[in-house]
């Protein structure tokens, strides 16, 4: 079994003439949890989007092995649909079973404590509530995923939401999932990771 979950060698990403990432070498073992710290515009989101195959590298090679889930900066929710309809859509699109397991939608609603807003449209929710729904989306089919990429998961969550997220990260670690968390919140993120990387000006420093 391949022990490497993510392997990047000499990867660069350029938008027009501007290099957002330069000569990135990164190897992440299966089950490893890494925090990615860096200021705004340092290249954290771009790095995660490259790993998630939402962007292609301008140079270098990038290999990943295993199913992946990406908690992106954007909410990726349909504002005209309700919380339940958004989650049901994910269940319908991702399940491999003949019958759609709608039970996982209920489970996600309970885990994120958003059952009371189940029938509200996304457009009517606060930013914190939307973030919880995005996290709930991540839970659907999470058992089949090995790698979790988290882009700034803490901001806009209230204290209760942050605790729920802490619980999820702990659970994924116990299950041996690979985590890559880009964050500004050092204190909150550090207990969940084995290794810390700093990124600045598109280069990984440590």
């Amino acid at each position, binding site marked *: 079994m391949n022990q490497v979950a993510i392997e990047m060698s000499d990867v660069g990403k350029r938008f027009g003439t501007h290099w957002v990432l330069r000569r990135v070498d990164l190897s992440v073992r299966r089950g490893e949890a890494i925090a990615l710290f860096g200021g705004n515009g340092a290249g954290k989101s771009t790095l995660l989007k490259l790993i998630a195959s939402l962007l292609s590298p301008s140079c270098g090679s990038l290999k990943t092995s295993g199913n992946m889930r990406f908690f992106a900066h954007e*909410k990726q929710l349909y504002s005209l649909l309700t919380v339940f309809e958004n989650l049901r859509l994910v269940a319908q*699109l991702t399940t491999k079973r003949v019958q759609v397991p709608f039970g996982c939608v209920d489970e996600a609603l309970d885990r994120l404590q958003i059952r009371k807003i189940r029938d509200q449209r996304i457009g009517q929710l606060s930013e914190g509530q939307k973030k919880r729904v995005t996290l709930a989306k991540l839970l659907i089919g999470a058992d089949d995923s090995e790698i979790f990429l988290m882009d700034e998961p803490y901001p806009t969550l209230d204290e209760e939401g942050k605790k729920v997220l802490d619980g999820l990260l702990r659970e994924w670690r116990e299950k041996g999932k690979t985590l890559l968390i880009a964050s500004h919140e050092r204190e909150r993120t550090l207990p969940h990771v084995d290794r810390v990387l700093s990124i600045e000006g598109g280069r990984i420093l440590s």
Partner: protein
Amino acid sequence: MKAVRQIAALVHKDLLAEFREGHALFSVFLFALLLLLLFHFALSLEPALLRRISPGLFWLALFFSSTLALQHSFGREVEDGQWEGLLLLKIDPKVLYCGKLLSHLIFITILQALLVLPMILLFDLSPNRSLAVVFFLGGLGIATVGTFYASLTATLREGPLLLPLLLFPMMIPILLATVQATELALWGDLMGQKEAWLKLLVVFDTVFLLGSLLLAEQIS
């Protein structure tokens, strides 16, 4: 089976959003109606001549308004990274394409139905059953090519500008065949030419559909 369920889920999602945002359908219908009115008054032709060219005016109005609807529909997919969210779920791009295509085809069919009455009133037309096949094949052609180019340009900053530039030239063969078939369905087909235009339309639709499915990977 899985693909069918995924396509059904995507179409359901689009129709729900469209239905809840009812003003979008109304605005697009109004736009098409205004185009027909503008054509009617701006051309200021004799009634008989205006009636003669009305199939062309109808398909042009339908095509322009459906392009507007397509841009609106894809705009909803990119307002907060929803399209990226779908791609992240590792759905086959062909499934994504088919979902959007079906939603757009349903939208076009509703628009066609809504535009029939104004066409009768403005151009004194008398629609018949044989038009249904032409409407379906023409609508499918517009939806097939439109959906492909809209999904290609959806995530680009210049997408709204690029879409008409890419789409309009590709629509010429479909519009030509559809207008000819509509004219023959309306005014009678003495020389038996309608079938030939319909066959040509079937070929165009098939080629564009297969081409779009083969190139669906580019969507991602």
